[in-house]
């Protein structure tokens, strides 16, 4: 039995429910037991560290401190989200490297009766655990429905392999882990030079044009290489490419249709699970046609959403940064 502590992260309960469902579906076959950290909180995502270091690190370290209470034979915290992984790993690393920071964070934690000694835990991403602990051979043995003929680009995103504090990945620019795993599932893995390029992150909220260009590059290159679909390891990457693909198409007057699934969903399929158990079908860019290549029929689970008419009162106009006068008037 392989036992780990699980830090799921907020996305897993909302936008990336499919990730969590599919993860739960593959735990059994792989004999993995994930013990969720009790009372965990948000990791602060990509923004908080840019605003105020001490509260941001304290917010992250609270989760590590809670995890140490539940160690019970394992010291590995596994998280399926790249942003959470990076934040947890970063807090562990910098609390050690900068003792003054570590002391301040622990001072904050002590208010809640908690403490975290950096280095106590191993913070690892789900993909890392699957490839290096479970092992590709063990995964291969569980495959009952090989993904033969399904052309997939492995998309690892930028936060997973960089900065690689504990040297866990094969390379920082072109890591091979995801491709190796998909190959073990029988998929036709396409060499994807943009595998660690940025998906735009929260730029979709701040500067959508920037995000659209980044999303476009990823989708176009996957399409040009003949991919049927993309495989993601991060809720943020999946969300951006899935939920914003339509807007990106609209912005560039293009018509790309490039579904993106979580690698755990693909593992579930390969292990013989049905799409419904794996959260397949809820993605906005449908994977129906792509999965038809391996003879999987995705049931239509939901009607195409019709945007509801606003019934409330209108909101004030959005504040634009270049409308200086307006801004000052508001102040």
């Amino acid at each position, binding site marked *: 039995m392989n036992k780990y502590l699980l830090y799921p992260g907020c996305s897993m309960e909302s936008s990336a429910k499919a990730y969590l469902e599919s993860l739960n579906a593959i735990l059994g076959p792989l004999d993995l037991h994930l013990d969720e950290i009790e009372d965990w909180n948000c990791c602060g995502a990509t923004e908080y560290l840019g605003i105020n270091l001490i509260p941001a690190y304290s917010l992250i370290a609270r989760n590590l401190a809670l995890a140490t209470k539940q160690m019970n034979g394992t010291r590995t915290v596994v998280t399926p989200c790249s942003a959470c992984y990076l934040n947890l790993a970063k807090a562990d690393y910098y609390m050690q490297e900068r003792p003054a920071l570590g002391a301040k964070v622990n001072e904050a934690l002590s208010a809640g009766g908690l403490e975290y000694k950096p280095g106590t835990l191993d913070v690892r991403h789900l993909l890392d655990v699957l490839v290096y602990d479970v092992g590709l051979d063990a995964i291969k043995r569980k495959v009952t429905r090989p993904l033969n003929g399904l052309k997939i680009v492995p998309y690892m995103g930028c936060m997973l392999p960089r900065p690689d504090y504990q040297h866990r990945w094969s*390379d*920082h*620019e*072109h890591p091979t882990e995801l491709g190796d795993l998909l190959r073990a599932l029988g998929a036709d893995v396409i*060499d994807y*030079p*943009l595998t660690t*390029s940025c998906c735009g992150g929260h730029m979709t909220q701040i500067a959508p044009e920037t995000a659209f260009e980044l999303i476009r*590059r990823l989708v*176009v*290159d996957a399409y*040009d290489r003949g991919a049927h679909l993309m495989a993601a390891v991060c809720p943020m990457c999946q969300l951006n490419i899935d939920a914003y693909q339509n807007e990106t198409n609209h912005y560039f007057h293009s018509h790309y249709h490039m579904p993106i699934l979580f690698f755990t969903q693909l593992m579930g399929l390969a292990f013989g699970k049905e799409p419904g158990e794996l959260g397949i079908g809820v993605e906005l860019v449908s994977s129906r046609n792509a999965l038809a290549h391996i003879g999987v029929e995705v049931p239509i689970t939901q009607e195409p959403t019709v945007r509801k008419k606003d019934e409330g009162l209108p909101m004030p106009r959005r504040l634009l940064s270049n409308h200086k006068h307006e801004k000052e008037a508001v102040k």
Partner: protein
Amino acid sequence: MSEKKQERVGVYVCHCGSNIAGTVDVVDLANWAAEKLKHQGVVIAREYKFMCSSPGQELIEKDIKELGLTRVVVAACSPHLHEKTFRTAAKKAGLNPYLVELASIREQVSWVHTDKAVATEKSKAVVSGAVSRVIENVPLEEIKVPINPNTLVVGGGIAGIQAALEIANAGFHVYLVEREPSIGGHMAQFDKTFPTLDCAACILTPRMVEAGTHPNITLLTWSDVVNVAGYVGNFSVTIKKKARFVKEELCTGCGICQEKCPKKVIDEVHEAGLGYRKAVYTPFAQAVPNFPVMDKENCTYFIKGTCKACEKFCPTGAIDFKQEDQLINVDVGNIILATGYDLFDARRVSNYGYGRLPNVFTSLEFERLSNAAGPTNGDIVLRDGKTTPKSVGIIHCVGSRDKNFNNYCSVICCMQGLKFAHLVHERTGATVYNFYIDMRTAYKAYDEFYQRVLEEGTLFVRGKVAEVTNAARNDREKGKLVIQVEDTLAGKQRRIPVDMVILSSGLQPRHDAREVGKMFGISCSTDGWFTEKHPKLDPVATMTEGVFIVGCAQGPKDIPSSVAQGAAASARVLDKILQREVTLEPIKASVDQEMCSGCRICNGLCPFNAITFLEDRMVTEINPALCQGCGTCVAACPAGAISGTGFSDEQIMAQIDGLLFRNLEPVEA
């Protein structure tokens, strides 16, 4: 401490111009020493502008004779600089040179302090320590050993060849050992040499032939040095001559065996992985010696037990499958290491795509590509073997000047990049881009070559390339390698699509440099290059007497510098040979075998392999000829059984007492 006869000590404080006098009150220092250390035996303390000058030395000599000094302390620079000067002066005046001590008040005081009062106080402590110490010094005699006139040169690249030829031409015997089947080294792989564009083979092969046929040179190729014992003048070296499976005395070098051998192997060494050779091969046509070697790992006979095509066709019956490795012992007086460099593995810079993107080449691959004797007969083509590139990007500083890989500059890459630009331009007419951080074209006629390449129309982009990718963003980039770079002169990001990328990879120490260094008793810098005795004034000698380093083994350098170092080291060796004997410092460690517990802690510590353990008596012994007096074992010995002449416990303790002013006369209350 037991009372001894009162020594008569002279203290000499040097101003070193303003180097010392600017920060230390030298007059006060001398007066203080004369007064406060009088009871210790200081009979005279003087200060002088330059103690190392002839009048300064004469001052000391005169005092030794006239005042009957028995000990001398010179408060001046580090002993590294002038210890010898003052010891020689003392010797001239009839005093044993080892009764002279230097108090370093320049490197350890004036150069590192600014406050004159504090610096003066500290210099008093240093002088006080030296006085207490010198009293405990004992007269020592230098050791003289005869020198074996033979020399070992390790590495048959251009630097090693040059060194071997210079010594052989002077009439002394040289053993030239080379790991590969042929001498020639990296230079034999090149097509042209910068900045004059001489054909590398045309200027190298005459030297190779000369080295191969010289009556004073014993050439041992396909051989490794496996053991080194002894010391300057008397090294005993064991060389493993790997089995060639070809009888050298019968082979005529006709090449029929290579022609008939059915097994094709990728040549990772000479062809840099870009071409093929046979399982029995000479690496290139002009190889010296020109008899082939058999690659046992790949030979069909050794794998499957049948074939022997080479044996069947050999007209002189020179093939011998039963040959075995041979161990050869040679005695030499001096050793020159010319072990060269490894090319930086460009796969490590994964954002440049080498190993992943087919049309990204390394510098050595391009050398073979452009070489008329290379796999494409000199045609510059893409990896498909036929398409001529229309645009080529040359990336400088790959693995060099990069804190992720090597911090140092690899020296040759700028000129190499310019040479490639010229060759591509001349032979294909392609558009050539050079991506550089800084253009470094020092030395004779180098910058003129840069001007020439500029005038030829090569485009230069100043900026470190971020990545080389095949992920096209538009039609212009489709099917190309896109170089993403910040053009720091234009102040903007650029994406430049090209057909071929050449990585001007840096130079690295040999992968086994540290083990080789340990075998020869020399050290490596943090980067891994062999460390010279002095970076400016003694660049080819090492801290181990009789072992010299030349060429890229010492650090990245171009062909002219490698040749100059080869010649320089040979001059140093010839100087030693012609002296017939070598004088060794008597500063040595010795083991009191009564006290040695046989714990062997010191055994692995000696950097000069001077310590041997006598199994029968379970005690350790130090070879005085090998010992360089570093003191590591003295400090390490838990039983206090090892003592160093010149660094005895008495001397050290007395010096510490002096430094702490415990030697001053108690002030009467």
